[in-house]
């Protein structure tokens, strides 16, 4: 027999299922700190790759200007400049990525929590019918 409450709950769950992505379940299996730390680390690694590519392209595009009157001092200054910019970028990116992934974890956790709560309510409704 059709239970109106159960049908309503299942419809609501089906509607919410679109919001709940598979990734959410994966994210919620981590502790928030672990998740944000891991992804911040990955982001920093990607940043290093991206920064390397940008520096390479800029160096390639300005090869003539760099090679012109190249001295040891100029080389050291350039290298230090590149490293300083890299460190600054890493710090900014690490902070931003940490916040971003913490917020992402929170949202995913909330969606999964709501999904499980609805599942348990549905289970209780089935039990009550039996």
């Amino acid at each position, binding site marked *: 027999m059709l239970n109106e409450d159960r049908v309503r709950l299942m419809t609501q769950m089906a509607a919410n299922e679109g919001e709940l992505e598979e990734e959410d379940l994966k994210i919620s299996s981590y502790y928030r700190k672990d998740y944000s730390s891991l992804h911040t680390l990955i*982001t920093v690694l*990607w*940043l290093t*790759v*991206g920064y390397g*590519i*940008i520096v*390479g*392209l*800029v160096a*390639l*595009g*300005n*090869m003539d200007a760099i090679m012109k009157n190249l001295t040891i001092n100029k080389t050291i200054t350039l290298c230090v400049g590149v490293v300083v910019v890299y460190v600054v970028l890493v710090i900014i990116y690490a902070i931003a990525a940490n916040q*971003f992934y913490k917020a992402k974890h929170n949202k995913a956790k909330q969606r999964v929590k709501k999904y499980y709560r609805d599942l348990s309510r549905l289970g209780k409704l089935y039990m009550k019918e039996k």
Partner: protein
Amino acid sequence: MSTILVWKEELQMLYAKHAVYVEKALKFILGLAVFGLINSNIGFMKAAASMLCTIGLSAVCAFLPLTVMVIAASVLILAHFYALSLPVAAVAGAIFLVMYIFYFRFTPKKAWLVLLTPIAFAFKIPYIIPIAFGLVGTPVYAIPVACGSIVYYMLHYVKGSSAALKGTSADSMVKNFTAFAKQVLQNKEMWVIVVAFALCLLVVYTIRTKSADHSWKVAIVTGAIINVIVIVIGDVTFDIHIAYVGLIFGSIFAIALGAALEFFIFTVDYSRTERMQFEDDEYYYYVKAVPKIMVPAPVKKIKKINEHKETTTIDTDAIRKVAMKQKIPAAQKEAASTWKRKNADEILFKKSLDKDLGISTQSTPGKSGNRNTSQNAANRNNGNRTNSANGTNNRAGRK
């Protein structure tokens, strides 16, 4: 005005009714525009530049998320570049990788916004992009606008210098590598446009989020003016020769499109603005409520009239005859039953007379019996009328 508002409502209703198909169709059209423009402008790989490939890719991408279209467009560009020259493909691949690292990783669902900027450039309406993104988006949208501008200028350069970029010898490849990287990164026009668009977008976003009256209109016009000013300053400073006529007419067109966008997204009636003030334990609230202009679309009622049905001709004379035939025996039956009943009444009346008054009807059986018999026979011959008269008399007598 009200007619246009009704059209808007009808359009929204139509979209709501057929959203699935409309989205697929729009994706297909976007795919045709993206892949068609790539193949027509930099179609160096003949197999990938065919119309069949364009339509096939568009059809496939129409059923997949928009991120797939971005990836497919990137791969197609790299394939064409590879057919032209390996260093060009390598530099373009590096630029795409940087875009992925710094933007797409964080908001993969908004990656498709990158596609719109090159399309707008190809259709000679690039100035609408920062205004439109500022109206509907957030400051983060400045990144896809910048990425899209870089991609467009990269394609534009390769299209114009394809002959110079060809070369298979090791020496020419190194030269091409350096020249292409230099051109892409040191294109002053590109950077001026990137800065102008980013500033325009931020200004439009900042103004349109204010609660002032007509903030959207002010934001659109201010954004267009900022765009023109920054580009002119960049042009004068770096001597990059931007066509002013195109810039001004493009900006006017952008204002018109921005106004159209406002009409569809933010239609409010400032003349009916209400201001309220209230407080709770911690705050005073100053609220400004601007009503939306809502015109309900007229609902068309369709009345279905049933189609004409053929009827048969009835022979009324024949029906009447049949009815008469059926009526007569029924009347006769009724008369017979009435006569029986009356006859029984008469017998009962006589019995009661015998019992109460001692008048013997049996004493003169011949006479009375004859009379009764003859009367009964007469009754039978005269039909109903006589029977009913007798019945009435009998009842009266009994009383």
